[in-house]
């Protein structure tokens, strides 16, 4: 069951950029691609927990600012030779607003 929650206007995140959303259990990074897609991922790189929201966004990937691991925004999977995965959360844009799924965000409390 989904339970969408309105976070902010899409324009609050620059194209090819990211911002953080604070939750009780750490930060979720919300990304916006050049094509105005949005993705939400845990803001911690599987390598050494680098803050992904500070990385460079390209295509549908982000490069971690600490040691350049490339993470797929769609799957959370580390690309290339690196191995690891970040949790992803449903996110979408509607009427120019960013929506996140409250149920999923809460589920991480349990996890």
């Amino acid at each position, binding site marked *: 069951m989904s339970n969408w929650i309105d976070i902010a206007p899409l324009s609050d995140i620059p194209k090819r950029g990211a911002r953080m959303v604070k*939750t009780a259990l750490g930060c979720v990074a919300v990304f916006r691609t050049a094509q105005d897609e949005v993705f939400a991922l845990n803001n911690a790189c599987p390598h050494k927990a680098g*803050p992904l929201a500070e990385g460079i966004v*390209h295509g549908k990937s982000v490069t971690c600012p600490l040691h350049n691991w490339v993470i797929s925004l769609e799957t959370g999977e580390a690309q290339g030779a690196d191995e690891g995965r970040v949790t992803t959360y449903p996110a979408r844009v509607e009427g120019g607003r960013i929506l996140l799924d409250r149920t999923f965000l809460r589920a991480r409390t349990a996890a």
Partner: protein
Amino acid sequence: MTQKLIVIGAGMATGRMLETLVDANADYDITLINGEPRGNYNRIMLSPVLSGEKTYAEIVTHDDDWYAQHGISTRFGCFVQAIDRKARTVTLATGEVLVYDKLVFGTGSNPFMIPLPGAHLDGVIAYRDLEDTERMMGLGPEHKCVVIGGGLLGLEAAAGMAARGVDVTVVHIMGHLMERQLDEAAGYLLRKALVDKGITVKCSANSKEILGKDGHVRALLLDDGTELPCDLLVMAVGIRPNVSLAQDSGLAVGRGIHVDDQMVTSDANILAVGECVEHDGAIFGLVAPLYDQAKVAAATLMGEDAQFVQKELSTKLKVTGCDLFSAGDFADGEGREDIVFRDPARGVYRRLVITDNVVIGVVMYGDTADSNWFFGLIRDKTDISDMRDTLIFGPAYQGGTPLDPLAAVAALPRDAEICGCNGICKGQIEDAIAAGASDLGAIKATTKASASCGTCTGLVEQVLAVTLGDDFVLPAAASICGCTDMTHEDVRRMIKSQRLTSMPAVWQECAWKTVDGCHVCRPALNFYLLADWPLEYQDDPQSRFINERKHANIQKDGTFSVVPRMWGGITTPNELRAIADAADKYAVPTVKVTGGQRIDLLGVRGEDLPDIWADLNAAGMVSGHAYSKGLRTVKTCVGTDHCRFGTQDSTGLGIKLEKELWGSWTPHKLKLAVSGCPRNCAEATCKDIGVVCVDSGYQVSIGGAAGMDVKETELLVQVASEQEAIDTIKAVTQLYRENAKYLDRIYKWMNKVGLDWIKERIETERAALVDRFELSQSIYRRDPWAEHARDKAQSYQPLANLSLEAAE
């Protein structure tokens, strides 16, 4: 019994509906009322009328004869003012009252006029009907026009007027043209084609006010203070369904008049078609769906069963010489893959967006011959898994040849400069090859191309390869990254020779294989563009590593470090107090003296950055750029002021240099030092640029390093005066900016081009290099902390805080 049908609006939708009714001999007594003083015409052909490719007479779809022949009575130049749904009558502006059994709304839409100050002035018009078109056609070559809006309509208006010789400027608020239909790459190509037609295009430009004189428009004023003089101002920024009449008569109206699948409104006797309609949440601005609606409405009126279904839409731009097609969805959504094809030589760009093996969006520029085929794939949701490999090449494509990385070089004109040092252009190299030169050595010997600094070697080899074909084997050179086959040097050369001034331009002309590059190439391109076109290029923060994007060093735990500038290593008790206060206030865990004579505040939280900067700014300190690929510090010794050995004022020179050079971006970090005598207490001989003061003047040396490599500088020049030393340093910095590969420190660059070459250039071109450096500094010598603390502080905060939310 024949029923009375009244149609309000003689637009494209009602025109089609009337035809369908007439063809089927529907049993109606029809009256057509239109606000415009004319009947149905093909509104979308106003653009060819404007550009002179067609006349108004050619676009009339239904003339007086047609109405007469089919017994349709008409009231043109006359608005319907009121509707009485109980009595089933409409009242015209003339006072005439007509009775109906069935009524059809086809009132279209109203152009949206931005409520700018001055929007009421004479000469401010929309682009909607023949009157507007005639206003524009009335302009001659001596006139100026500004068009607000870089969408379909605005661009057609601009191109139409430009074809008549009018001096046209398009002002668009977004970063690229037609942003709803096109991606950046296609937008770039379109812009290029329009500029070639003599149209000035200003993107990311916000209109502020329309200026007038004696009640007539005189100019458009932009946010940034630019004034664009004009005799006519066309606003083409969007449309709003024309619903006021429907609303007044009590019909259900949202953004448009609500209709069901049969095009019936909330009143069973009233239908609506066209742009004034809202169906299932959607409104419409293109004719294809309106025609479908028209047919459904006709069927409904005839008591037949029909349903309107929304379909995928496509867009074409009716501007001669700009072949552009866009359909489906390439914007929002998850789980999408792109296939991108670029042929810079032909100016062709194609992009397909695919999800679950189905094409859902396509953007084509330059060659749109296959557009219908692609559109069909979208409409029919064809499974493309079998043709995926060759899909992008279109329907006719069998088998495949890989993209040719040399296409970019092949496309260079004969007069394109290849070797900047010796001023050799492509044609001269081709001539040399024709005369027998078949390898790099022979080209060097006969033309001198690539015989100096060598940065153009790759390009010369490519010209050889293009000209000789299989007879020349191209040595493999490392490309910038996986997004391209070109080397840094090749790309830099292309940026200069082809005047590429934006990132989409580089991606297109250099045949990038990804949509928007990656973390390796984007920072490099951002630097190259900024170094080569300081005036035209807009720095792209999203292509900068986080340190430069946020103007602080990221540390391993995601906190940042903040280093204020200390000019030449000098500080004051007040500055020290301010730093100490800031450290207290923001609970900075570590305060450290750096290797470059400054104080580092380590462990600052990202959210606190704008505040701590504001405090340090208030105490007179600015960013130390300790994070940048740019000037960092100028380390100094105490020099003549205090030291018994000092020969010159080394601290003073250090301060001067830092004040002149700060803020400049360079291929890699740039560290300087000035020592007051050969005892070299500032360790100037292991810096990128070092100055050692001696009795007779200043020894400027370059190419030192004390990082992963340890290197001693080599002497560049010895000069007598401080000013000469400063100019030399500016010149060498600029030479490095203009030529080096991104992420090469000076010593690496020097190893490639040779110290002699640098010496020669400094000797012969010092003044010009200094000028270009100063020009760039006029834009970049600024404190980013102050700018961000003032304008961007919000972006350092979390987007939202759900901590309470989740705790419930």
